[in-house]
C-alpha cells in the first residue's frame, strides 16, 4: 500500500516532470498561453502516459531487448494517434489551438522516459499509478504556468476576468513571456524546496 502511494506521489511532487526533472519543455512552453490550454495539453499527455505505461508493462516480457525502443515508440504513437482522432472529433476547438503539439506527444521525453525507467520493470498496476502520478504532476505544472501567464498577459483566470478590461502585459502571452514566467516559477520552487 505504501509503495503504491509512494509511486503515485513521486511524480506529483518529488520528481515532478516539469519542475523536478525538467522534461517535456516544448509543450510546457508552447501550450500554456492560458490555464485551459495548459490543462488540456496536460490531460492529453496524462492519457497517453497511463495507457502506454500499462500496455508496455504488460508486454515487457514479450518484447525482445534489442528492439525495445522502437516497440515502445510504436505503442506510444498508437495512443497518441488515438488521442489525436478523439480530440479532432469531440474537442475540435482545443485541437485547433494545441495543433502540432498533440502529435508531438510521441517525442515528449516524459512518456518514453517513464516507459523505460518504470513500466519496463514493474507490474501493470504500479505502472498505471506511476503514469497517473507523473501525468497529474505534468498537468498541474502546465495549469499553474498557464494560469500565471493568462493572469499577467490578459488579466483573466480560466477565461474569467480578474482585472479591468484594458489590463494585460501582452508579452506574457507571447513567446518570451513563456520562458520568463517559467524561469521565475522554477526559481521560486527551487527556493521553497531548499527550506
Amino acid at each position, binding site marked *: 500500500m505504501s509503495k503504491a502511494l509512494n509511486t503515485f506521489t513521486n511524480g506529483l511532487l518529488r520528481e515532478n516532470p516539469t519542475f523536478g526533472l525538467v522534461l517535456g519543455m516544448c509543450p510546457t512552453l508552447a501550450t500554456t498561453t492560458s490555464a485551459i490550454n495548459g490543462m488540456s495539453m496536460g490531460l492529453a499527455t496524462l492519457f497517453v502516459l497511463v495507457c502506454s505505461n500499462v500496455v508496455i508493462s504488460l508486454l515487457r516480457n514479450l518484447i525482445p531487448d534489442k528492439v525495445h525502443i522502437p516497440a515502445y515508440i510504436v505503442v506510444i504513437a498508437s495512443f497518441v*494517434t488515438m488521442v489525436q482522432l478523439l480530440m479532432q472529433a469531440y474537442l475540435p476547438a482545443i485541437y485547433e489551438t494545441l495543433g502540432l503539439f498533440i502529435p508531438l506527444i510521441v517525442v515528449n521525453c516524459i512518456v518514453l522516459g517513464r516507459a523505460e525507467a518504470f513500466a519496463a520493470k514493474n507490474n501493470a498496476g504500479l505502472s498505471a499509478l506511476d503514469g497517473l502520478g507523473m501525468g497529474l504532476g505534468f498537468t498541474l505544472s502546465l495549469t499553474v504556468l498557464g494560469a500565471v501567464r493568462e493572469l499577467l498577459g490578459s488579466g483573466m483566470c480560466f477565461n474569467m476576468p480578474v482585472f479591468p478590461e484594458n489590463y494585460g502585459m501582452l508579452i506574457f502571452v507571447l513567446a518570451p513571456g*513563456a520562458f520568463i514566467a517559467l524561469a521565475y516559477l522554477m526559481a521560486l520552487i527551487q527556493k521553497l524546496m531548499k527550506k
Partner: protein
Amino acid sequence: MVYLLIIISAIFVNNIVFSQFLGICPFLGVSKKIDTAAGMGAAVTFVLTLATVVTYLLQHFVLIPFHVEFLQTILFILVIAALVQMIEIVLKKISPSLYQALGVFLPLITTNCCILGVAILVGDGTWAGKVPGAEANLLQGTIYAFATAVGFAVALILFAGIREQLAMNKIPKAMQGTPIALLTAGLLAMAFMGFSGVV
C-alpha cells in the same frame, strides 16, 4: 525572391526555438559550450533536411494515395528513428571524421521534437501559410526545412555563447541552473521578436 523570403522567415522571423518552441530539450541540454552547440546544430541540419524529404515523399506517395493519413504520426516517427540509425551507419563507413564530430549527437536527435515537428508541418503543407507566396511543394518545403535547421543552429550557438559568459558570473542561488538559462532564452526570444513583420 520567394526562396529568400522562406529562408529569412524560417531563420529569424519564425525561429523554431524562440517563436515555435520546438527542440527546447537539446536547446537547454547541449548549449553549455559553443563547440558542442555547433556540432549539434550541424547534426540537426543534416538529419532534418533528409528526414523532411523522405517523409514528404512518403506522405504524398504512400499515405495520401492509400487514404491512411491518420497513420502519419506512427509512420513518421519510425522512419525518422530508422533514418537516424542509417545515417549513423553510413557516416561511420564513408566519413569517419564527420562521424567523430556528429556521432554523439545522432542518437539524441530521434527524440528531438523539431525533426518530427517540421516533418509534419512540411508533410501537411501548413508551413506555407506563414510565408506570402510560398507553395507547399517538395523544393520549397526542403528549403524551408533546411533554413529552419539553420535557425535552430543559430539560436543554439548564440545561446551557448551567452551561457559561456554566464558561467563566470555570480548568480543568486535560487536562479542557478535551469531558471537562469530560461530567463536568458526569454530575453533572446524578445530580441528575436524584433524581426516580426519583416516577412
